[in-house]
């Protein structure tokens, strides 16, 4: 199985290179049509026109767009993504600092979405043939119609304002000194063995992660349910019944395994979208991740950061898709031989 997975990873890596080049070129072009002058913005307001011109030349802004892109690309390959105009720091470093926070949020949310989707899908399927079937279907439709930023606000309102149970800003209470080992706060607090701090970080994570998870679970529920319907008309289910296997066991041991695969394919795409959804949830909960960095950069027209953060989102989506496809390969015995 390992060689198959490795060859998939290899193929994916090769396919990802042109995609990333195109994505970066696209980002570059979109951001260069802006009516702002990065050179003028990177200098103090007292700068003379001659100084701005010199800065423009230094930043390569007087050259053709294609050449500018190649220069940017060459620097990017050496790990230099330009200096943030607003923070006056290296954009690559800023993105690298905030990325773990967003990844941690996204992974927790994916776990929640997966769990809710699995339980909800099984529950919806169990409702088939009962008077509650349509009710279940319509409720899942209603859940589907509540996007992540509305869940964020609803949970903030319910558990932050009406019943102030959970914190809703940042990643950690200000009284704690944040350990900095991997950047993944839940992991770091366990590494330095501070259960109190781990708990604090977990309560801060709860609302944003649940908001995201709730928003992305209905789609998984609905696809799992319809895949289960497809599986249940197969002969092996009828045969399992004839063998006297209990309904519960047929559902969990026989049908679920087969229905999980199409669901996983969809979940992969959904997780890519979920990663984008972190941006909104981060804004709502003032969570210091890539999303807040990106939105700040958008408000300040901070091009190097928008570009680097945009690229980071794409890399993350490609990685998530590859991980889900590898998982698919591991779980699907039919694909192992080749």
């Amino acid at each position, binding site marked *: 199985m390992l060689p198959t997975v490795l060859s998939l990873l290899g193929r994916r890596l090769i396919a990802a290179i042109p995609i990333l080049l195109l994505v970066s070129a696209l980002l570059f072009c979109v951001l260069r049509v802006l009516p702002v002058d990065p050179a003028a913005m990177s200098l103090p307001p007292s700068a003379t026109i001659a100084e701005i011109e010199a800065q423009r030349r230094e930043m390569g802004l007087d050259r053709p767009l294609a050449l500018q892109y190649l220069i940017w690309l060459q620097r990017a390959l050496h790990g230099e993504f330009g200096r943030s105009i607003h923070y006056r720091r290296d954009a690559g470093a800023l993105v690298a600092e905030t990325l773990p926070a967003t990844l941690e949020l996204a992974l927790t949310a994916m776990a929640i979405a997966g769990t809710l989707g699995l339980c909800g899908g099984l529950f919806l399927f169990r409702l088939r043939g009962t008077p509650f079937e349509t009710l279940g279907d319509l409720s899942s439709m209603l859940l589907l119609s509540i996007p992540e930023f509305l869940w964020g606000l609803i949970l903030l309102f319910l558990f932050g304002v009406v019943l102030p149970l959970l914190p809703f800003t940042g990643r950690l209470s200000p009284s704690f000194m944040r350990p900095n080992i991997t950047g993944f706060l839940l992991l770091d607090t366990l590494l330095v063995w501070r259960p109190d701090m781990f708990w604090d970080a977990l309560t801060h994570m709860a609302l944003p992660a649940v908001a995201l998870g709730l928003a992305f679970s209905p789609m998984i529920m609905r696809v799992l349910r319809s895949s289960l319907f497809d599986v249940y008309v197969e002969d092996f289910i009828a045969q399992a019944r004839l063998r006297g296997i209990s309904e519960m066991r047929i559902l969990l041991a026989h049908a679920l395994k087969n229905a999980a695969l199409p669901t996983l394919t969809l979940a992969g795409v959904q997780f890519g979208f979920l990663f984008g959804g972190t941006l909104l949830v981060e804004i709502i909960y003032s969570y210091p991740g890539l999303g807040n960095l990106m939105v700040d950069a*958008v408000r300040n*027209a901070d091009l190097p950061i928008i570009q680097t953060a945009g690229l980071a989102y794409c890399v993350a989506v490609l990685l998530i898709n590859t991980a889900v496809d590898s998982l698919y390969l591991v779980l699907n015995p039919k694909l192992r031989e080749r």
Partner: protein
Amino acid sequence: MSPAVSATLRSGRVVIGLGLVLFLGMCALLAPLIAPHDPAEQNLLSILLPPAWSPDGNQEFPFGTDSLGRCILSRLIYGARTAMVVAIVASLGAMLLGSILGHVCGYFGGIVDWVVGRAVDVWMSFPPVILSLVLMVGLGTGLDKVIMAIILVDWTRFCRVLRSEVLVVTQRDYVTAARLLGFTHWQTITREILPATLPLLITLLSLEMAVAVVVEAILSFVGLGVRADEAAWGQMIADARQYIYQSPWNLLFPMFAIIIAVSAFNLLGDGLRRAFDVRLAQLAR
């Protein structure tokens, strides 16, 4: 009325979904007639009023006022206008662009198919929120820019699904027969293939309208959507967020409005999907 249309209308989901959509559409169309106030009119003496049914409420403002004393109900009604315009125009635009490319790719294949397929790959590697945000940075704010951004982001939804559908339909015998009868490519696509893909197209369109409402709300929420002088639900939410303790209703009303609009389009789309018997897991966004 043809039997197919009446059967479609008999589905409860379609009726309820369509009813809600028509209600929102009427609000949008008749906004100047039914809104009790001008949505931009500020009453600085009566700010953050609660809804009329609470003890401190004022009958003049049925749903209360926001932090600048603007009438919430009027802003909701004018916000419906923004949402519906975006939903309809942006979805139709995305449908046109995506389905034309989808039909061309699925029917002709070859180099066009390859190029469009790679473009779809690139688009799919962007989370839609991020792509629309970046586009809004490039385009600037405004209703037309929001519509443009949604078209440029969401054409892939139509293109992917329709391409694979057209691939299947093109293999059918009646399409080959049409070609043998001397139909041109244009005639084959419009007279033989399009009628077969139309149910899918209409279903996707309805679901895309739900997506468009959400995207418009998100962009306005982040402050990159419509201009500040246009009323939009996302913008109302962003304003009300700062006054969540003093006046939670400010936040809840536009949230309800978005949920109602999105579930109306989703319900309609799901009803149409069932009525047309379109079976596709890919419909999932």
